[in-house]
């Protein structure tokens, strides 16, 4: 009997220890101190997106940061599930890499950075305003942007040469882009490249379809989340025609990145995807700015860093984020070549370190030209985030039906494009009624 009691007691102790180990990230009250001494000692965790390249970027930061704060030990952890789940299970890291702010800030997952910024005299004017705004909710800053991502065009110089088509210029318009697609299709076919598309236009990627819709005078959502879908016919027809005329691959059915394998002459991408191009040894490419739309919009966005509201050492976490946002931190990020830094002086410096990757002679300015055209789709902040998957699926379904002309036929649910668009808007609004 004594043995059983001892075993049960041991089991209970083990369970208590396990629970205690899982509760080490409880919220703690801590006065704001933005002037930590360089001898400050702390252990914090750094959650990065589940991508080996992000671990590489994190290590660049940490290595540079530890030259200033050698006793703040930072452990990098890859976030293998969404931030909300990590927060709910008390396993969210102290500093978090994130692309979405509003829904998490609204629920108190992130610490407001505004008091820290105020105390340290943080100068937001050094960064792209459109990117800074992405990190705001309700007048407070919750995330600081580390990068400046806007869509651009990468093109395969060998395929352009084979088709005898001139390389695109940064100041090209949408009509010129469409004409280039037509020329490429004709030229490539004549050159024997019958299975190569002119462009992988990424038509179901938010920065593309939202921007093209707005760029042709349309509007997607009202600020209260109501799906308006007004005047979208022109923009969506432009995307439809890219596919219907055989210029662009079907974005929904493709199973691989065809540009990387020489099956598309152009690809619409953002800066982080340059890594994929550079990893293809036989691919010769260069960049051009995204073509100008009638109302001059180019899809843009960013990711950045936030502090877990339950972090036990928010001062150390802020010191790390402040370092990331400093010129030294941005320079460390620049060295990875992973993206364009959000600091304007570095982003627009033609000789900045990030422009050396993968080749300094490429047209890297394509990723920073025309900041006035930046269009950051704000819609995810408008509609009910509890149903974002259903809303996104309905949007994809709309695009699929538009691109593949699934209307007007005897088996189709809608007789015209206008009816299809209106019907899908109504569907999204019904989803949100709950």
């Amino acid at each position, binding site marked *: 009997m004594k043995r059983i009691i001892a075993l049960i007691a041991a089991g209970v102790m083990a369970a208590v220890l396990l629970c205690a180990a899982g509760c080490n990230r409880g919220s703690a009250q801590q006065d704001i101190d933005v002037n930590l001494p360089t001898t400050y000692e702390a252990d914090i965790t750094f959650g990065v997106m589940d991508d080996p390249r992000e671990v590489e970027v994190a290590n660049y930061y940490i290595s540079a940061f530890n030259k200033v704060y050698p006793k703040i030990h930072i452990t990098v952890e890859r976030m293998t599930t*969404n931030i909300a*789940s990590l927060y709910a299970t008390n396993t969210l890291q102290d500093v978090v890499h994130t692309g979405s702010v509003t829904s998490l800030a609204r629920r108190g997952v992130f610490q407001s950075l505004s008091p820290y910024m105020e105390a340290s005299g943080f100068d937001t004017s050094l960064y792209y305003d459109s990117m800074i705004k992405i990190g705001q909710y309700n007048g407070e800053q919750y995330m600081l942007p580390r990068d400046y991502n806007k869509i651009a065009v990468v093109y395969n110089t060998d395929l352009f040469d084979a088709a005898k088509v001139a390389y695109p210029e940064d100041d090209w318009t949408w009509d010129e882009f469409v004409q280039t697609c037509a020329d490429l299709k004709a030229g490539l076919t004549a050159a024997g490249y019958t299975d190569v598309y002119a462009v992988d236009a990424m038509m179901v990627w938010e920065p593309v379809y939202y921007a093209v819709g707005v760029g042709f005078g349309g509007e997607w959502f009202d600020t209260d989340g109501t799906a308006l879908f007004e005047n979208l016919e022109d923009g969506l027809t432009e995307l439809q025609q890219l596919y219907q005329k055989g210029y662009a691959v079907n974005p*929904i059915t493709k199973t691989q990145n065809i540009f990387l394998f020489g099956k598309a002459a152009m690809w619409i991408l953002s800066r982080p995807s340059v890594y994929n191009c550079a990893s293809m040894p036989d691919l010769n490419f260069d960049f051009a700015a995204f073509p100008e739309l009638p109302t001059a919009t180019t899809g843009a966005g960013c990711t950045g860093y936030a502090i877990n509201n339950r972090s036990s050492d928010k001062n150390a976490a802020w010191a790390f984020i402040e370092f990331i946002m400093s010129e030294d931190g941005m320079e460390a990020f620049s060295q990875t070549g992973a993206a364009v830094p959000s600091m304007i002086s570095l982003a627009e410096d033609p000789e900045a370190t990030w422009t050396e990757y993968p080749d300094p002679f490429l047209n890297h300015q394509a990723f920073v030209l025309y900041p006035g055209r930046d269009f950051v789709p704000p819609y995810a902040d408008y509609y009910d985030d*509890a149903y974002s998957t259903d809303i996104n699926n309905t949007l994809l379904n709309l695009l699929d039906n538009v691109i593949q002309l699934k209307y007007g036929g005897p088996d189709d649910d809608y007789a015209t494009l206008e009816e299809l668009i209106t019907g899908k808007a109504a569907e999204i609004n019904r989803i949100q009624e709950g």
Partner: protein
Amino acid sequence: MNRVKEKPSVVIRNWLKKNWVGYIFVCPAVLGFLIFTLWPMLASFVYSFFDYDMILPMQNFGLQNYIRAFTIDWDKFSKSLSVTFLYTVTAVPLDLVVSFALALLLNKSVKGIKVFRVLYYLPCIMPSIASGLLWRNFFDIEYGLANSMLAALGLPAGTFFTSSKTAMVTLLFTSLFGMGGSMILWIAQLKSIPTELYEAASIDGASVFRRLFQITIPLVTPMIFYKLVLGIIGALQAYSGAFIILQGGPGPDESLMFWGLRIYYSAFGQDIPNMGYASALAWMLFLVIGLLTVVIFKTNKWTFYGEDAQ
């Protein structure tokens, strides 16, 4: 003879003393069930009556999540229902018939038969992620091997996973390659049938088909019953195959939006989990599976468990 009534504490002590080794051995399994199955089940049952995003406290107690599936969300939920039931009524019989036929063929005493058994079983040992990626590339309509083969045969290109009309058929086709596991079970069952029965039937002049329908099938009914029950449960819960092949997407026109996939999307497919609704969907699925299982057991008069079975 009158027995002296012992105190309960003494009874428990003696009982534990006698069986303590057994309890220690079952302890991990019981604890595992309690902590990782029963507790989450009970928790999800509670969640299903609240608006709950796992961050803010649960609020608004009521049946709103259950009602939502049949009102506002009915278009999408009914789509998932039809996809899931279509898959169940086709995949389960298909698996039963094809794997049984395969087992009959591979139950012959032919030289080298073991090689064929291994070949048919091999796809089962491939990780589902790997086979999903393989199928995705195989059925790529532009550059996949499937259309290359059809073109070589002079046949028109297929649309496979890219059309709502062919996506389900294509998925069912891919499921055929996982039948090696079922085949092994069938062969084990076929081996248990006494050969004397076949010998006697042959002497009486029974044809191959007569032996199949009068001896083989009646004697494998326990396996049919077993596979039917597990097949229906598995098919109603299915979504991972399509999830991998379509990279998490629901397929064209949500033609592969299984019930399970809808649960996953609601719970984990977005920045903010809708755990209340996901739990309600999961409990409805549990209820349907439970009811169907009861119906199958209640109508089970056709399984032959042997002459002496009760």
